């Protein structure tokens, strides 16, 4: 039995997956293997096999406390260097608990919670459940790709005197874009503007803020975020 026959045939891909998982390959070979892995599900399944089994060796890494400065540097880099996006902090939302007394946590049973779609026209492909701690505003958003509209149905939430609710879309790292004012006591069909529509999909975040009458005086929200949720495919 020659060396070649040992490593050719059916086992060869598994050996490549093992070499990749172990990190044995040179940079070039590793990059080539990565390209194949992206294209070949069977090879990825070999890789999962090895990753799962080899993870048992993790005990071999001895715990060593990093220097205290490491946390400070990390914290500075993640949270101080750039201003966090306005929706990026649970604490911020919590601090606006005065909007309403009730605490609402959405049970993410989206398919159950979503109102039965209108069978005539509204073919929803994406759904988002919008809520935030410290707020009783709960809204389900259904997106209809055919019409390019989002249908918002409030499950709970109260009108606030001298205030309007405003809907926003957040896509990637871009600033929130206004989708206009919405009524909390009625169904809203919101036509998405072309620039939002272009990138609309799973991962797009929808948020509702409470703004002065007529909406935010700025291009971005100024009031508390009372509900936020991410679009998910159904």
């Amino acid at each position, binding site marked *: 039995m020659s*060396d070649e026959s*040992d*490593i050719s045939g059916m*086992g060869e891909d*598994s*050996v490549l997956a*093992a*070499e990749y998982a*172990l*990190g*044995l*390959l*040179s*940079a070039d070979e*590793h*990059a080539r293997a*990565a390209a194949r*892995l*992206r294209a070949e599900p069977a090879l*990825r399944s070999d*890789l*999962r*096999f090895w*990753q*799962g*089994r*080899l*993870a*048992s*060796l*993790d*005990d*071999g*890494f*001895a*715990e*060593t*406390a*990093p*220097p205290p400065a*490491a*946390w400070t*540097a*990390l*914290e500075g*880099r*993640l*949270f101080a260097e750039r201003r966090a996006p306005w929706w*990026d*902090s*649970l*604490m911020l939302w919590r601090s606006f608990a005065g909007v309403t007394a009730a605490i609402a946590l959405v049970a993410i049973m989206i398919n159950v919670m979503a109102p039965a779609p209108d069978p005539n026209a509204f073919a929803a492909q994406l759904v988002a459940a919008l809520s935030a701690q410290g707020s009783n505003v709960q809204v389900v958003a259904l997106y209809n790709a055919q019409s390019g509209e989002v249908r918002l149905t409030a499950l709970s939430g109260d009108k606030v005197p001298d205030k309007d609710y405003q809907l926003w879309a957040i896509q990637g790292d871009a600033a929130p874009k206004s989708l206009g004012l919405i009524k909390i006591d009625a169904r809203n069909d919101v036509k998405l503007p072309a620039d939002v529509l272009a990138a609309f999909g799973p991962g797009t975040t929808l948020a509702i803020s409470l703004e002065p009458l007529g909406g935010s005086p700025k291009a971005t929200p100024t009031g508390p975020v009372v509900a936020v949720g991410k679009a998910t495919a159904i």
Partner: protein
Amino acid sequence: MAETAAEIADLLARCALRDRAAFKTLYGRTSAKLYGVTLRILRDRSEADEALQEVYVKIWQRADKYVPGGYSPISWLVAVARNHSLDVLRARKPQGEDIDLALDVADAGPNPEQAEAARGERSRIDNCLGQLDEEKADAVRGAYLDGYSYEELATRHKVPLNTMRTWLRRSLMKLRECLSA
């Protein structure tokens, strides 16, 4: 141990919701392990410090990629640290796409039944490595824990590169057979 895993999984879920307090707790719980990984593979304190920071930036940014019930959360974190350290070793600069792939693959990781089975894996892999020549088992451990490539292993074991490849590939075939049995 299972309790710790559940706690870590919960912290990761909260990180995915941008909960900074959870991230700080997660760092407190796991940074010694992950520093152990970057330090052992990179063998240089300042590089290990820098790598640790990159690793936690990735964890903060990708916490939503961890799928509870699949890969053990600690294995997932170690995989992020290990893959990043190997990328640094390979190129002396991180290669983002490899890390993406490593994470994506981890996402699709073992299902809950496999995770259940993984509890017995530790003794299993020791047992299977024990069936290889000691030198070859050491080479596999060295690759996993120290990030040795074929080149380094060949130098350390004082054999030509191609000999090392042939040795290890055969050993990996045997290992696969044993681990699949």
